C-alpha cells in the first residue's frame, strides 16, 4: 500500500484513464447492444447468428484481439475501447433479449389488448420490465471490462494496468498491489453503483416514459 501513499497523483491519473476507457466502452456497447437485443426479439431468426457470433467473439483472448485490431485502430486507448465494446456486447445483447423475453405474457397481452402501438409496448411495458435484467448485463460487462482493461496497458492504452506492468518490469510488488487493489475497488463500486441505478430507474422509467 506504500505505493498508493507515495504516488497518489499517478494512481489517480491512471484510475481516471481506466474509468474513461471502461465508461466509454460500456456506453457504446449499451448504445449498440440494447437496440440489437430489441431487434432480435422482433426478428427471431437473428437470434442464432447474433448470439453465436458475439459468443465466439467473447472467447477470443484479449491479447489476441488487441493484436488483431492494432493494424486498424493503432496503439492506444481506441483499440482498447473497440475491444472492450466487442467483449461487452455479448452480455448486453443476451440480457436484453432475456429481459424482454421475461416480460410476463399477461402484461403483454393486456397491453396489446388495451391498444398500445408497437412503440408504446416497447417503451411503456417491455423496456421498464426488462430493465433489471438488461442492467444486470451491463453490470456484468462493466465488471469484466474493468478487469480486461488492465491488459490494455500493454498496447499503450493507459489505465491501472500500467501499474501492474511497471511492477512486473521492475520486479517490485508495490505497484502491482496498488493497481490490483484499485482495479478491484473500482469493479466493486461500479457494480454497487449500477445496482443502485437499477433500483432508481425501475421506479422512475415507467412513470416518465412516453408521457403525454
Amino acid at each position: 500500500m506504500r505505493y498508493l501513499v507515495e504516488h497518489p497523483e499517478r494512481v489517480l491519473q491512471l484510475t481516471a484513464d481506466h474509468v474513461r476507457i471502461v465508461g466509454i466502452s460500456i456506453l457504446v456497447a449499451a448504445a449498440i447492444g440494447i437496440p440489437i437485443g430489441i431487434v432480435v426479439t422482433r426478428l427471431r431468426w437473428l437470434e442464432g447468428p447474433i448470439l453465436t457470433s458475439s459468443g465466439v467473439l467473447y472467447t477470443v483472448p484479449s491479447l489476441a484481439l488487441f493484436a488483431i485490431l492494432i493494424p486498424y485502430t493503432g496503439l492506444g486507448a481506441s483499440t482498447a475501447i473497440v475491444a472492450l465494446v466487442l467483449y461487452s456486447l455479448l452480455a448486453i445483447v443476451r440480457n436484453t433479449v432475456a429481459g424482454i423475453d421475461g416480460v410476463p405474457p399477461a402484461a403483454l397481452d393486456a397491453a396489446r389488448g388495451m391498444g398500445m402501438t408497437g412503440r408504446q409496448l416497447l417503451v411503456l411495458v417491455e423496456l421498464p420490465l426488462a430493465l433489471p435484467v438488461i442492467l444486470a448485463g451491463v453490470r456484468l460487462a462493466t465488471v469484466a471490462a474493468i478487469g480486461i482493461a488492465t491488459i490494455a496497458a500493454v498496447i499503450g492504452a493507459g489505465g491501472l494496468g500500467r501499474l501492474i506492468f511497471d511492477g512486473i518490469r521492475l520486479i517490485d510488488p508495490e505497484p502491482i498491489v496498488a493497481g490490483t487493489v484499485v482495479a478491484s475497488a473500482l469493479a466493486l463500486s461500479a457494480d454497487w453503483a449500477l445496482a443502485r441505478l437499477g433500483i432508481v430507474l425501475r421506479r422512475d422509467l415507467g412513470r416518465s416514459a412516453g408521457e403525454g
Partner: protein
Amino acid sequence: MIALEHLSKVFTSHGQTVAAVDDVNLEVGEGELHVLIGPSGSGKTTTMRMINRLETPTSGRITIDGRDVRTLDVVELRRSIGYVIQQGGLLPHFTVAENVAMVPRLLGWKRQQRRERAHELLALVGLPPERFADRYPRQLSGGQQQRVGVARALAADPPIVLMDEPFGAVDPITRKQLQRELRRIQGEVKKTIVFVTHDIAEAFLLGDRIVLMSEGRVVQNGPPADLLRRPAAPYVTAFIGEDRGLRALAYTSLSEVAMAVPNAVPVTGAILPGTLSLVEAGRELVAVGPANGDGFWVGDEVGNPSGYVTYRQFATEIAERLAAEGVVGESAEAVMADAVPR
C-alpha cells in the same frame, strides 16, 4: 352490436390442422352480457380474442355496429374495447391509478383528467381511491387486482368490454363477491360484454345469454333458463351438471307455473310477484308465514293477481325439478366421460 358470422380459426401445429373455432355465429346485443362457456379447448377464448383482433380469423367476419373490424384501425379498435384478463394483467411498474388510466393515457388525456377518472372508477369498483390509487399492484390481494382490472377496462368508457375468465384466479368467496359487484356495475354502466368462463355457476349468475361451446362449435346459445329447460343436446345437460335441478328452481318463474284464474275470483291471502323464481318464492313464503287457504296468488307486472298456485302444486313443481336432477346426474357422468375433456 357485435355480430360474428361464420367465424372460423384454424391452427396448424406439427403439420396437423386443428379447428379451434368452427363456423361460429353469434349476435351480442347492445347492453347485453353474453357468457361464452365450455371446457378448455372449446374455442371460447379464441372466439373472444378475435373480436379485438388479438387473433385473426381464418374465415368469416366480425362486425361491430355493422362495420367489419378488419376495416378498422387495430389500435383504435382495441382502445374502444375494454379488456379484462385473468389476474387482471396489471402492469407491475405502474401504480393502481396509472394502470386504471392507461387507455386514457394512450388516448392523450391530460394528467389531471386521467387522475380524476381513475379515482372515479376505483370508487365504482369498491376500492377507496385515497387508499388504493398510489399503491402498486403487488401490494394488492388477488381480488383487489381483479377489481383494478375491471376499472381499467371501463376507464375510457368503451361501449364493449371483453372479459377472459376475469375471476378465475381468486378464491370462491372473493369470486362470488366480484360476480355480484360486476352485476351491480353492469346495472349502472350497461356495457355490451362478452364474458369467457368455464364456471357454470358464474355463467348462470351473470349471463343474459349463455353460449355453450364445445370443440370450436356453439352447442347452444340462449337465455340461462333455455339451457335448463330446453337443452339442445345431451352435452348441454351434462355440462350444466348435477346442480341442474337446483338451477331449474332458480330459473323457473312463478308466472310459468301459476294457473290462470278468472278475474272475478275474490283475492285473499298473499300476492307474490310472478317474476320471482321458485327459490325466491319459497323464501318469500317462509318469510310471510302460514297463511289461510290452500295457496297464494301470483301478480302480473303491475301487481294485479293474474294466477294462483296451490301449496300442493308448488311442492310438486319443486319436487319434480329436484327429481330430474338425480336422473340427469347419472346420465351426465356418462356423457361427460366422452364429451368433456378433463
